């Protein structure tokens, strides 16, 4: 065994907490193939960024892998049909979002009875493709970050041109969720292959795979694959093992644990030279490059006490939550709610007709006892337990105070924007205050205020410009007026000069006349006096 490739991280992250993992029993079963549902519902927005634009019509027959909606703008992703079938509707459908509000979706009636996937080619062979080709394939395949954020992978690569290291994030830290764990165990080679392909696309020289020490089987599986790699590839990859602590899987926390450095505020990991992608994303890239398969399916953890056969299921995108939990044997009689995502950052679904999307990593079919409602909110006693667990080193109790009293500027000066909404503060709050809700509220208010401020600044600029223009015009007018006046004055002066000249001439004549007269008189006088 090559120990050189495994490093236990020594840097600590601030705060964090070891939560009751609850990953078993779902993580103990190998990944199972999901069933083909009768209908798939594909929302036009199942990624971060703008909605894709539907390019199919109702009634159209589709083949599996056919593009049905195209990316729109810089940050968006293509959507493909995961099944052979027929478009039966393009209409608003209930969503698996926090609000659950209906959004436009393409609804496809499936005609498949089984799905045949292409046999993958050797990924080492696929690695001979140029970076541009790989990046373009990733973009065309509609691959987005499968860790839960759904940021389009191609956009992330494009935005991280300066990254030299690719970090594959396998620190699946939230309780219950174990799809990445299982993917590493069952598809370790594919994940590593995908990582090399991603690294090539992003021009990264070095790959780091990170996971937590509560996933020993996954660590072993990855290690085994690393040991089979040729030496020149082994030199370019390293496995990091971090302590198990929520939220280690946050990319900023993970980078702090690995490098000991913090990603500066308002910047991205590329600032530290890193590009971070999820385990599932690496697998999707592998499928894209070796099978020419766009993103049609994903691993979903189906778990919770109301599920009879918990496990990680390989589900087609668009499978409704109802169908998904039925595959894992849901017991409707004890089902209280279904949580989309993990218990910390996820949310309960309003409607089980909502679909599994590219960002659905976990569905928890919970019983009433499993996730009980919080007791009544009590006043904050500033006990500071939230401070101790906050991974962003914030003062949650002060932020709560500011959010409550709507002192948004103070909240901003206490760095509310650095809150990653991990939920630990509320988790430990003895007063059961839904702190994250307050922060979300404050953040959205600050955003609105900022927008209003930008708008008013723009208006002010416009207003000032108008004033300037009017002032300019006024000055110009005055200048012209003044010039005219000057002109007039000059003319007047010229006239006056003329008149003056005449007057002077007249005066001279007059004076001369007077002089002559005088001398005549004098002569006369002298003459008069002489005799």
């Amino acid at each position, binding site marked *: 065994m090559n120990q050189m490739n495994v490093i236990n991280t020594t840097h600590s992250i601030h705060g964090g907490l070891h939560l009751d993992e609850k990953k078993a029993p779902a993580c103990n079963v190998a990944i199972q193939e999901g069933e083909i549902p009768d209908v798939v519902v594909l929302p036009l927005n199942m990624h971060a960024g703008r909605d894709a634009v539907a390019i199919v019509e109702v009634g159209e027959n589709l083949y599996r892998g056919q593009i049905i909606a195209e990316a729109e703008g810089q940050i968006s992703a293509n959507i493909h049909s995961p099944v052979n079938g027929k478009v039966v509707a393009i209409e608003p459908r209930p969503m698996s979002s926090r609000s659950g509000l209906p959004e436009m979706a393409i609804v496809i009636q499936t005609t498949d009875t089984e799905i045949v996937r292409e046999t993958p080619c050797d990924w080492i062979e696929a690695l001979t493709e140029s970076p541009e080709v790989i990046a373009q394939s990733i973009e065309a395949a509609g691959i987005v970050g499968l860790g839960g954020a759904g940021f389009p992978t191609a956009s992330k690569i494009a935005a991280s041109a300066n990254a030299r290291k690719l970090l594959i994030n396998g620190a699946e830290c939230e309780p219950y969720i174990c799809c990445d764990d299982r993917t590493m165990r069952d598809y370790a080679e594919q994940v590593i292959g995908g990582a090399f392909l991603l690294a090539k696309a992003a021009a990264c020289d070095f790959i780091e795979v990170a996971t937590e020490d509560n996933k020993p089987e996954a660590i072993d599986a990855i290690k085994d694959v690393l040991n089979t790699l040729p030496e020149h590839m082994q030199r370019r990859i390293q496995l990091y093992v971090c302590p198990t602590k929520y939220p280690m899987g946050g990319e900023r926390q993970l980078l702090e644990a690995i490098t000991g450095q913090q990603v500066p505020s308002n910047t991205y990991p590329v600032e530290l030279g890193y590009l971070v992608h999820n385990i599932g994303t690496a697998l999707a890239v592998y499928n894209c490059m070796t099978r020419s398969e766009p993103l049609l399916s994903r691993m979903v953890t189906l778990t919770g006490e109301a599920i009879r056969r918990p496990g990680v299921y390989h589900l087609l995108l668009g499978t409704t939550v109802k169908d998904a939990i039925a595959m894992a044997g849901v017991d409707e009689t004890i089902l209280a709610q279904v949580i989309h995502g993990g218990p910390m950052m996820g949310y309960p679904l309003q409607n089980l007709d909502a679909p599994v999307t590219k960002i659905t990593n976990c569905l928890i079919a919970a019983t009433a006892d499993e996730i009980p409602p919080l007791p009544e909110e009590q006043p904050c006693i500033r006990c500071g337990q939230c401070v101790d667990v906050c991974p962003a080193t914030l003062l949650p109790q002060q932020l709560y105070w500011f959010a409550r009293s709507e002192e948004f500027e103070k909240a901003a000066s206490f760095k509310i924007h650095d809150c990653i909404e991990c939920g630990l503060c509320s988790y430990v709050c003895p007063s*059961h205050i*839904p702190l994250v809700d307050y922060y979300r509220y404050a953040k959205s208010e600050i955003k609105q205020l900022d927008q209003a401020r930008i708008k008013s600044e723009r208006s002010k600029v416009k207003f000032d410009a108008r004033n300037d223009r009017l002032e300019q015009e006024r000055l110009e007018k005055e200048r012209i007026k003044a010039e005219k006046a000057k002109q007039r004055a000059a003319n007047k002066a010229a006239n006056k000069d003329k008149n003056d000249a005449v007057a002077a001439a007249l005066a001279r004549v007059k004076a001369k006349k007077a002089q002559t007269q005088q001398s005549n008189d004098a002569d006369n006088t002298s003459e008069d006096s002489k005799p």
Partner: protein
Amino acid sequence: MSLVNQVPNIHNKQSLSGMMRQVLLATIPGVLVLWYFFGWGVFIQLAIASAAAVASEAIVLKMRGKDWRRAINDSSALVTAFLFAISIPALVPWWLTVIGICFAIIFVKQLYGGLGFNPFNPAMAAYVLLLVSFPVLMSSWVPSFEMWSQRLSLGDSLHIIFLGSTSSGISYTELINGFDGYSTATPLDHMRNQLRLELMPAEIADTAEFKLMTPAWMWANVAFLVGGLYLAWRKALDWHLPLALLVGLAGTAFVFNLFAPEQYPSMIFHLLSGGTMFAAFFIITDPVTASTTPKGRWIFGIGVGILMWVIRTFGSYPDAIAFAILLMNMAVPTIDFYTRPKAYGER
């Protein structure tokens, strides 16, 4: 399907009232020691204070249009009652306790907005009010029982507290003016008074009188330390605060004792006299009125410790805890403002 929309969906299942009950539980060793040395009055004061606290809290909550049952449910009024009752001499008249508690709950706590909103520690503010208004009553710790030929019975204790004299006619004034020639001073008082007579701490500590009055306070301190360590172990308090107070007090006492042992009593004397451990683990750990930032807690605790030493040494009150804490309470908003930790990624 009934939805529970909360972020996050799970909780560590701790609660405010649970924390408060832990605090009440942790006072038990200390209360038992006080009872052993000072008699039934300790329990009677606890009962009076608790009843007055819950009643006044319920009434004010009702007047404020809030759920009055909270007064009992969150146990915070009971905690105030316990902390106050433990701070006062065991045989003070019942009305003194009631006045103190009503002031603590109604004025110091509820008028500022109730639990979580009060800038001052209610028990300490009430203590100071009574100390300033009734200095003699409030500084008279009736001698611990070892000085008595016989213990004051429960009936006599009730008699004194409610009626002003024992059933055999010994009045409260007679009691506090000394029994068998002994004064009712605490070791802290005694030390200060004797120091002013130009005696050296070592000499004072050697007197029979001092030796007789010391064990009660020493054991009470040990008992409250035990309760406090239990709270720290259960994570019901932030251990930084008590540690900071003890460091502030012991450090100051150590330095002065080192350079002028003939003038300043030792560090151990300060740590085991008066309400040091009670203050460190039960009073300044009231999170509402303490600083809330990690650095601020050190400053707050050390500040209280230093002020305690200063007031004990140069002041003329029986103990300095209440004043030291109220003074630092005033500084909390400033401390908090200037000790905000750097956020992740902040440059």
